[in-house]
């Protein structure tokens, strides 16, 4: 048994594993790259597992919006951190593919970087932060600002699979409701929402009808992104690791957020706001609080923070900083693409 040296890890179960020098995370990872991967199958999962995941995806594509069970495997990341998404991604990726991973809209977050690295190391795929260059995009919380095409696949990580759980914790009862398209309780939820707030006030996981048949939880994407799923060119796979369910929105499928005739679905609005970095007014913005750059003095008071708005999609924001008029469909040889709210027409913005 290797003696713990500088490690501060609590993991002592090294028996049978590969002893890893643990001076730093990077050193550990480089050790894994050289030695640790021998014995692992291509793309981490064994071929039978990947085949099973792909079969579930095919079934999910065949029944849009319907939750298909699959044998979710333990992954080298904690459940709830994208284990479903990474299983879906790894089952789809081939050596010629280019992968993009985003978390909270950013490619740089620790979680996104870890998932990207796992795919890089085990599936030998190229990675990118450029939405338009990716063959497969794994994401949590966002659908990119740039229009996805019929060559691209989007994998969304799903924490909670069933939209109905909001109104009834019983999965058994909810499965019966799905089977019979009985969504009365969800409608009552919307009704009471309007009673309370005067409008439908659901921030994320907005209940959405797929192909006019199944009610779907579109994962924690903001309302802003939900319309992008409607009649999209790309395939969206939604995968949950903990709940072991996969569902899908195939290309050109109708996706309709539940709403009343006289209380319509609305997306988030950012009146009078623009991204402080690139100046965009047609993208999904988030508030960022930052310490003023110069002083490092007393930071207890709110006044020492500054609230600003910034693009949530950091990769597209970088492009906009280069070219403030870049349309969201700049990479397509057509214009007038309907992609989410306030999409500028390519022709008008060129």
């Amino acid at each position, binding site marked *: 048994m290797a003696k713990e040296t500088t490690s501060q890890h609590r993991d002592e179960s090294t028996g049978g594993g590969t002893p890893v020098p643990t001076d730093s995370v990077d050193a550990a990872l480089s050790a894994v790259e050289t030695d640790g991967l021998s014995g692992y199958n291509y793309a981490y999962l064994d071929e039978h597992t990947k085949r099973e995941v792909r079969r579930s995806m095919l079934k999910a594509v065949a029944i849009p919006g319907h939750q298909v069970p699959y044998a979710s495997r333990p992954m080298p990341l904690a459940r709830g951190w994208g284990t479903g998404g990474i299983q879906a991604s790894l089952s789809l990726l081939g050596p010629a593919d280019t992968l993009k991973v985003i978390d909270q809209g950013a490619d740089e977050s620790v979680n996104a970087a870890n998932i990207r690295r796992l795919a890089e190391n085990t599936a030998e795929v190229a990675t990118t932060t450029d939405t338009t260059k990716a063959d497969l995009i794994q994401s949590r919380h966002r659908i990119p600002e740039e229009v996805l095409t019929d060559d691209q696949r989007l994998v969304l990580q799903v924490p909670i699979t069933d939209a109905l759980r909001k109104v009834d914790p019983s999965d058994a009862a909810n499965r019966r409701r799905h089977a019979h398209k009985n969504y009365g309780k969800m409608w009552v939820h919307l009704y*009471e929402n309007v009673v309370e707030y005067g409008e439908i006030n659901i921030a994320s996981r907005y209940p959405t009808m797929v192909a006019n048949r199944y009610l779907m939880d579109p994962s924690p994407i903001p309302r802003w992104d939900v319309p992008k799923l409607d009649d999209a060119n790309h395939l969206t796979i939604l995968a949950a690791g903990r709940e072991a369910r996969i569902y899908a929105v195939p290309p050109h499928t109708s996706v309709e957020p539940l709403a*009343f005739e006289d209380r319509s679905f609305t997306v988030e609005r950012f009146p009078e706001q623009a991204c402080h970095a690139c100046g965009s007014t047609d993208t999904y913005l988030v508030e960022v609080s930052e310490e003023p750059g110069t002083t490092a003095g007393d930071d207890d008071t709110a006044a020492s923070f500054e609230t600003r708005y910034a693009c949530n999609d950091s990769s597209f924001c970088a492009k906009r900083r280069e070219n403030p008029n870049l349309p969201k469909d700049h990479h397509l040889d057509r214009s007038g693409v309907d992609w989410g709210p306030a999409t500028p027409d390519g022709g008008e913005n060129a």
Partner: protein
Amino acid sequence: MTLLEASAVETIYGPGCPDCLDATGDRAGTNQCPRCGTVVACAEADLDVAEGEVLGIVGESGSGKSSLAEALALERDPEATVNGEVSYAGHDGNLLEVDYQTRHDLRSRDISLVHQHIRDGLDLEFTGGGNVAEKLLSAGWRSYEDVRMRVRELFEETEIPVARMDDPARTYSGGMQRRVQIARALATDPDLIVLDEPTTGLDVSVQARVLDTFRRVQREEGVAAIVVSHDLGVVRLLADRTLVMRHGRIVESGLTDRVMEDPHHEYTQTLINSVI
């Protein structure tokens, strides 16, 4: 015009045997088959309900009145075997054989059940208004203002304070919850409402007012009703015609005042005489 017609309706719990029907019922003095142990909750039940008419079903607990009413209200107990034929003016075919979807559609629009136990009929975490709205939304209403207006109208009609419309149903009194159930049952203008023990759990002073509300609305809307109760007073006040059940069989039927004042069957005479 006949709205609902039932013949040979039976609900049994158990394997059943050829002797079940002969060995149970009023003459046998039991509803359990002595040979195979099957409980014949109700059997050989024939009845019909005309448009706008109120039919009462009385009997003591275990007489089969709720089993019969549930079969007619399209409630399904997976433990039970239900046989017989029920035809309904708004549907082609036997109501006892409809699939889930048809049953759901009929229950949303045509035939409402007011459960004996409030918790079976209401979601107490929803608002009172939301419980009524659910019926409309399930039936496909998609205009918020229309739903809102109809819910308010039903609250007024069933005399629930409109100001309480947006409070959670769990904060309502028992009488108000019962009214919400009635409002909900009436929401989509059904042809038939089945009321199972409508006074269960209510104070005597509240009972009368709830019954009066129901009777008034029932008459104004012209909706037919089947009222199940062990309480002769409830049936006397609400029902035009009455069935008396015992040991799973209908032992007597007729105009309510006739059954109450000129009971023919020995059991009915006992029942009437036992009322103080």
